[in-house]
């Protein structure tokens, strides 16, 4: 009997949701736009810096130097300095800079002179890349001339956060958790609006004057909220290829994410007085909850306060599965964190909604 009543409330909520033009419009808009944005983003990161070299005779030697000692450089050979200049000016061949080596380079070195090696860069080149190329040119010149560099530095980089050298996350992968969380948040607003309407129009009072118990009512709202958020985020996940790696883990992560946002939806719905009020309260939750997802766009370790946000575990779990292919055991800490936040948010949301309905 209880199950049939809960089912009736869920179906009623679904009917109301589907008849709300605003919710339907936002839902479709979000799906179409986010999928389009996702597939528009580059899906790989090219870590190689392409440079042009103007001297065909020396290009083989330069190539040998870069292959052996300067990984990350690719060479494009040009017949003359003029050709190289033109290519840089016109932005051809994806070269970021050019090295013009004079034809009499060997002769000058043999004669003990200091030949001039010209580094051609576009004005838009970031200064740090220019500095890098200065060093590279010096090293290449030493390599060609056969004279060892005056120092042999050994550098050990201290990487904050995960070392992504050689394993960069593409913009698509970085955006994936953000897109998934944004969809969850939109559905949070839909749920909170439906709850706010039920509270404001006091239809909840009419429902609770029937044999429906308050726990049935809360269960129905919870199941509807989780179902709505989960189904939409799974649909979006399918459209943006989120299930290519360890699909069961992604499903569990998204389900826990749906539980988490449903809790916040209940809280926002309990406090929302009208459409704008509900929107405002929802935004108060949405903005901080999205911060960990935005943080994933930037390299480096997240500060403590970001790690304390409820969606941090959600974002980390998604990235670690989709980008790094980590296993269940490896993502367990993030999953546990997410589950704890999800249960806590849902319990608090149900408690607040229960109190709100009881005082109607």
């Amino acid at each position, binding site marked *: 009997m209880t199950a049939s009543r809960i089912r009736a409330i869920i179906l009623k909520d679904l009917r109301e949701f589907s*008849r709300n033009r605003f919710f339907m419009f936002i839902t479709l808009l979000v799906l179409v736009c986010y999928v389009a944005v996702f597939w528009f983003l580059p899906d790989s990161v090219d870590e190689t810096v392409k440079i042009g070299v103007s001297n065909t005779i020396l290009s083989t030697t330069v190539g040998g130097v870069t292959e052996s000692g300067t990984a990350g450089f690719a060479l494009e050979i040009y017949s003359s300095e003029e050709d190289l200049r033109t290519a840089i000016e016109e932005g051809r061949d994806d070269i970021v800079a050019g090295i013009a080596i004079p034809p009499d380079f060997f002769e000058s070195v043999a004669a003990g002179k200091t030949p001039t090696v010209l580094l051609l860069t576009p004005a838009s080149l970031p200064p740090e890349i220019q500095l890098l190329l200065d060093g590279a040119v010096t090293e290449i010149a030493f390599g060609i001339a056969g004279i060892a560099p005056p120092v042999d530095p050994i550098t050990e980089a201290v990487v904050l956060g995960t070392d992504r050298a050689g394993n960069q996350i593409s913009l698509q992968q970085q955006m994936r958790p953000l897109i998934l969380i944004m969809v969850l948040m939109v559905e949070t607003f839909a749920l909170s609006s439906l709850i706010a309407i039920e509270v404001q129009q006091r239809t909840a009072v009419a429902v609770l004057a029937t*044999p429906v118990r308050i726990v049935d009512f809360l269960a129905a709202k919870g199941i509807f909220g989780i179902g709505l958020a989960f189904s939409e985020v799974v649909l979006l996940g399918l459209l943006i290829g989120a299930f290519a790696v360890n699909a069961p883990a992604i499903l569990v992560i998204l389900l826990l994410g749906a539980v988490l946002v449903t809790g916040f939806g209940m809280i926002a719905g309990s406090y929302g007085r009208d459409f704008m009020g509900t929107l405002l309260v929802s935004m108060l939750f949405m903005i901080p909850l999205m911060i960990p997802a935005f943080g994933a766009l930037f390299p480096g370790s997240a500060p403590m306060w970001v790690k304390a946000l409820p969606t941090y575990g959600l974002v980390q779990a998604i990235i670690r599965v989709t980008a790094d292919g980590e296993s269940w055991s490896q993502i367990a800490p993030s999953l546990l964190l997410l589950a704890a936040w999800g249960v806590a948010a849902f319990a608090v949301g149900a408690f607040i909604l229960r109190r709100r309905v009881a005082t109607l």
Partner: protein
Amino acid sequence: MTTSSNSAAVPAIDVAGVRFSYGDIRAVDDVSFSVASGEILGFLGPNGAGKSTTIKMLTGQLKPEAGDIKILGMNMPGRREEIQARLGVCFEEKNLYLSMTGRENLVFFAKLFGVRDFEPEPLMERVGLSTRLDDRVSEYSKGMKQRLMMARALINTPDVLLLDEPTDGLDPVSAIAIRGLIRHEAERGAAVLLTTHDMHEADTLSDRVAFINQGSILTIDTPDDLKLEYGRRSVRIRTRQGDGVDEQVIALDEAGTEDRIRDAVSVEGLMTIHTEEATLEDIFVEFAGRGLAG
């Protein structure tokens, strides 16, 4: 249809010494009354008198701080679900699902009540909404919404009906239709608790009325007995006197009344004779020292 398993001697609604406070404000204080099956009890009082709080305790929405509530012989809130299955409530606010049709609203609540094979058509026919069954409630007028509220209250063929201002703000035609429904339900055997501001409605519909003010019941009796006991009855006699009109008001409860009436009507030029009695509002003012408005 659900039938009461209780004997006729057991009141359908039995409230004894009930008390409830909102913080420091005592909303209901030591309220006791009962309603028998087939009886309509009018609950009269100004806003804030404690009527809605009492109804909320009867529906199980609020738990009394003290006292006992028994509905159909069962303790509320102890056996809340069993009671609610046999309860029909018409709220003061129009708490209907506006984006759903009249049919969908009724079918939804029928599912919550567990009514099998529910057909909304006969019920909508009774409240005069059969042609608007598949229109969204947002398109209904205020009167139509109120009639749908009444239909919703009758979905489970209740043994107890709690009606909070069921005709408030309705046009006369809709109000008459709703009163007809209430009377019909009482004749069917339902116990009806009716809160209203409309003295005429309370007078004509109620078998008994209860006056409530500042959380306490002042008196409970039949409208006629209240008027007889507390009201001032009189006869207003108008006679033509030349070009003018003479008017006499003769109190019926004073000594020598019969002679005065006889003298008044025996003169020439008698125009009209009206008997007058106190309204329930007059009696309420006498009890509470204030009117029902506000």
